[in-house]
């Protein structure tokens, strides 16, 4: 018997995400976002998703704008200096989707509680803040050693986790070759974990530097080849964020929130609905533009 390869196609990956799922999204702000898989799900307009994300950006704002999200759990949505706020996030919160208030420490505590199979993790980080009162999943917990009470964070459950990384072998051993953000923790806590990569490499290449492996195949259910798959976000070692693209998005999304949805609908038709797959999407963006995002370009 030989080893089973876990490489699947983008449509196969998208089929693993169902309406109503709790979906974790890896990466950090504008870097290493799994947009290849996300665009497939957007095309299918999956509904009633609960999105769990470390500091997130326009990829989540777009999910909100497409009406796919029931509940959002993220400590941050923005693109720093490029665009401090997500238009749908800022404009529609509480109206078209619910927010489960969190911060980075609370998110880490909930994910760690799930990975450790614990009913809660205590935190002091949000004592005295509004997060403790706005998030109905949290509870006070006594300090059995007599100190002031803390907040108990329950396990944060995710049906599927989507991650973008540099490379993997066909068995699911993944290497980021740079910062890992919260991806290992997300993978430990995800019921299913799908990783899209710029490059699939041999098992020998992975084993040449096992210390570079950031997600061992124990924590990976499927791998998808997705070159330029993080665009318009940055991909470590490959390309920078496409700021012009984000600005265009912010412009049409802002207009939509203000009641002028036409340009946003065109944007969605052009970049999400019409392309038959990743290659067609990238051709619409244009190779010259993509190459210009590389280091030194």
């Amino acid at each position, binding site marked *: 018997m*030989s080893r*089973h390869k876990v490489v699947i196609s983008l449509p196969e990956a998208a089929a693993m995400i169902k309406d109503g799922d709790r979906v974790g999204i890896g990466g950090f702000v504008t870097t290493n976002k799994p947009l290849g898989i996300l665009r497939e799900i957007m095309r299918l307009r999956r509904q009633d998703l609960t999105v769990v994300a470390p500091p997130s950006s326009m990829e989540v704002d777009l999910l909100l704008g497409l009406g796919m999200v029931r509940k959002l759990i993220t400590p941050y949505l923005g693109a720093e200096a490029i665009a401090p706020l997500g238009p749908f996030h800022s404009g529609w919160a509480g109206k078209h989707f619910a927010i489960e208030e969190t911060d980075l420490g609370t998110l880490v505590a909930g994910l760690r509680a799930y990975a*450790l199979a614990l009913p809660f993790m205590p935190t002091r980080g949000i004592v005295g803040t509004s997060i403790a009162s706005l998030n109905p999943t949290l509870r006070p917990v006594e300090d059995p050693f007599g100190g002031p009470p803390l907040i108990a964070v329950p396990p944060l459950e995710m049906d599927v986790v989507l991650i973008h990384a540099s490379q993997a072998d066909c*068995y699911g*051993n993944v290497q980021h070759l740079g910062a890992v953000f919260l991806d290992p923790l997300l993978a*430990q806590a995800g019921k299913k974990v799908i990783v899209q990569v710029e490059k699939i490499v041999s098992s020998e290449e992975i084993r040449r530097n*096992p210390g570079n492996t950031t997600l061992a195949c*124990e924590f990976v259910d499927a791998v998808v080849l997705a070159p330029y798959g993080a665009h318009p976000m940055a991909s470590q070692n490959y390309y920078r964020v496409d700021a012009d693209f984000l600005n265009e998005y912010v412009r049409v999304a802002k207009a939509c929130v203000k009641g002028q949805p036409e340009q946003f609908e065109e944007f969605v038709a052009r970049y999400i609905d019409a392309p038959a797959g990743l290659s067609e999407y990238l051709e619409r963006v244009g190779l010259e533009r993509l190459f210009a995002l590389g280091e030194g370009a």
Partner: protein
Amino acid sequence: MQATAKELAAIFIARQINNGDYISLGTNLPVPAAGVLLAQITHAPDAKINVLSYFVNLAGMDSFPDLGQIANPSVVRWADGVMPVEQLIYGIRRMDLCFAGGIQIDRYGNTNLIGIGDDPQNLKFRGPGSVGTATVMANCRKFFIYTNDHSPRTFVPKCDFISAFGWGDGGADSRTRLGLPGEGPRFVITPKAIMDFDETSKAMRLKHLLPGTSLEELQASAGFELLVPDQLPEMEPPSAEELSLLRTRVDAKGYLRQT
């Protein structure tokens, strides 16, 4: 040469492993290690094996260097990844199978690596300590208990101390009542016999006698009354392929062929 009891025990373990299982291999347990390795090169090429700090896949190994020291640095040649030791616990949601040893094992599958005696401040014998068995056996999906010493010294009615909880004082709900996520000990394996646990009482029960041990002898080997089912089938004998692979690629040095 006929299969030895240790070889049969290893083959029994190999057959319990599902392809794709995530298994953590502790040190100094050569028979379970042999079972896992045999499974990997036969029906479980996708079993995910954790050896202390390394994630390895051994499906392509020609032969394994030394079963006596599974945490051999040379294991790194098959490593897909290196991990901090916390990972054992932090990634425990996905762990399917682990192994526990014990200086005492009781009729409800509790194990003791802490010590022997009544007074913890004045033990007759201090064990090496629980290592990670308490937390790992509480959480991982299932675990097997292994010992080479099938005698009343090890098999006691009640452990003096419990380092890894099995079924406590018995009863199918003894783990869920405490909120323990793992499904508990499944088998107890020794060179004399393979045992499981009664579905209701969770008392230890004989499953297979291994060659060289009679039922009477076995019953005298435990300090408590072992349940014996009406039907006591023999373990399905090893295939020629199982035995050959075990001897040539897993245990070339013959650790399991020593008595």
